[in-house]
């Protein structure tokens, strides 16, 4: 395995892979490191309907497979490995992975985000035993059962619609009195007989011994606390940025996001960012792709000045 690279892209989601295509086409020796599976957060979606250029809904895995092949076509190397540390060496970078260290002239950091948890009692203990973060993964276990989806954004409503194909009843538990999800998804949710919405409510605890049995839910307007029986609870309350490796190099805001302007450069020389690590991102494949391209072009400008 080659040790020395022009660019190492950390993260193999839409932002990282879009950047990889541009770095490859700039004839830079490019390595993409992905700790889990190529695709990032979109692999949890069942279909993508709003990525421009596709009249029919697309399957995330198919889209990612095309991005992977497209980057490989331009000589990019994709490696399934977890970055353990990021270090400076002179003007360049050292990237430590499991049992190896690589060098790079520039880093493009697109490590994305991970699921946010509520932090309520019982949540971690019952994770994988009724509590889930992936409806497309776990829906088959809830055939003709009662499930709850926590959240009110695109992910929550998409998950509720997917679960309604399996479960007997789906309850969307949302802390506000309106959704922020796309209107088309709201329309589908309101028209689906299996889905009901529990507005203005928050989950205080996940109850159950061997598996999830109930959720303790508080109505924020009335203050009433009620235990409601559920076999499954799906968390779709947002994500947190994967930015631990950037600490010490880049200033992060109080939630761990990188604050950046459109250049997607950082205060650390040769370190560029893209995708869901950036404050204010709207978590859309098309946006991540665009940011990946923007960061890759900035990265190329930086490398060209070194040549």
């Amino acid at each position, binding site marked *: 395995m080659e040790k020395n690279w022009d660019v190492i892209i950390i993260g193999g989601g839409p932002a990282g892979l879009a950047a990889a295509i541009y770095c490859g086409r700039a004839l830079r020796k490019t390595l993409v490191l*992905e*700790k*889990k*599976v*190529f*695709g990032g957060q979109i*692999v*949890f*979606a*069942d279909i993508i309907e709003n990525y421009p250029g596709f009249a029919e809904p697309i*399957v*995330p*895995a198919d889209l*990612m497979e095309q991005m992977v092949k497209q980057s490989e076509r331009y000589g990019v190397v994709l490696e*399934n*490995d*977890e970055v353990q540390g990021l270090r400076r060496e002179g003007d360049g970078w050292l990237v430590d992975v*499991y*049992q190896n260290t690589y060098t790079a002239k520039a880093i493009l950091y697109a490590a994305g985000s991970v699921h946010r948890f509520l932090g309520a009692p019982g949540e971690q203990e019952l*994770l*994988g*035993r*009724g509590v*889930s973060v*992936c409806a*497309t*993964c*776990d*829906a*088959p*276990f809830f055939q003709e059962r009662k499930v709850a989806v926590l959240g009110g954004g695109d992910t929550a409503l998409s998950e509720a619609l997917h679960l309604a194909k399996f479960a007997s009843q789906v309850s969307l538990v949302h802390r506000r009195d309106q959704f922020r999800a796309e209107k088309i998804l709201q329309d589908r949710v309101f028209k689906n007989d299996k889905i009901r919405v529990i507005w203005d409510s928050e989950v205080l605890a996940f109850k159950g011994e*061997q*598996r999830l049995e109930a959720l303790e839910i508080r109505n924020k307007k009335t203050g009433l606390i009620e235990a409601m029986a559920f076999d499954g609870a799906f968390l779709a309350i947002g994500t947190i940025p994967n930015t631990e490796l950037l600490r010490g190099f880049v200033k992060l805001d109080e939630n761990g996001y990188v604050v950046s302007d459109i250049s997607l450069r950082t205060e650390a020389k040769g370190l560029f960012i893209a995708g869901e690590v950036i404050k204010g991102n709207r978590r859309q494949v098309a946006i991540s792709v665009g940011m990946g391209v923007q960061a890759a072009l900035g990265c190329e400008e930086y490398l060209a000045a070194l040549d």
Partner: protein
Amino acid sequence: MAEVISVNDGNFESFIQGSRMVIVDFWAPTCMPCQLMEPGLEKIAANHPENVRVLKVNVNESPKTSSRYFVRTLPTLLFIKDGQVRTQIIGAVNPGQIEKTLSEVS
């Protein structure tokens, strides 16, 4: 070269006996992370043709096996030796993490 073997409720038991380490991948066609993990599992099977057997169980087609091990989230990997579960990994992981777990439980 060893490959990943598809098993079901009918023949699962016969594949997990013996002293060889068995990795069982519980998956479903709708589970995208499961599909994306497949190349990594094939790599693991190919890397350990003698001492590790890699099985995959479609939870839709084999509910008994999934219930027996209380699998309620996908992907789930079970590491079984001598018929006993030694450890499990829940959620998508890369081959490096599977190798690490293998070396810890072997």
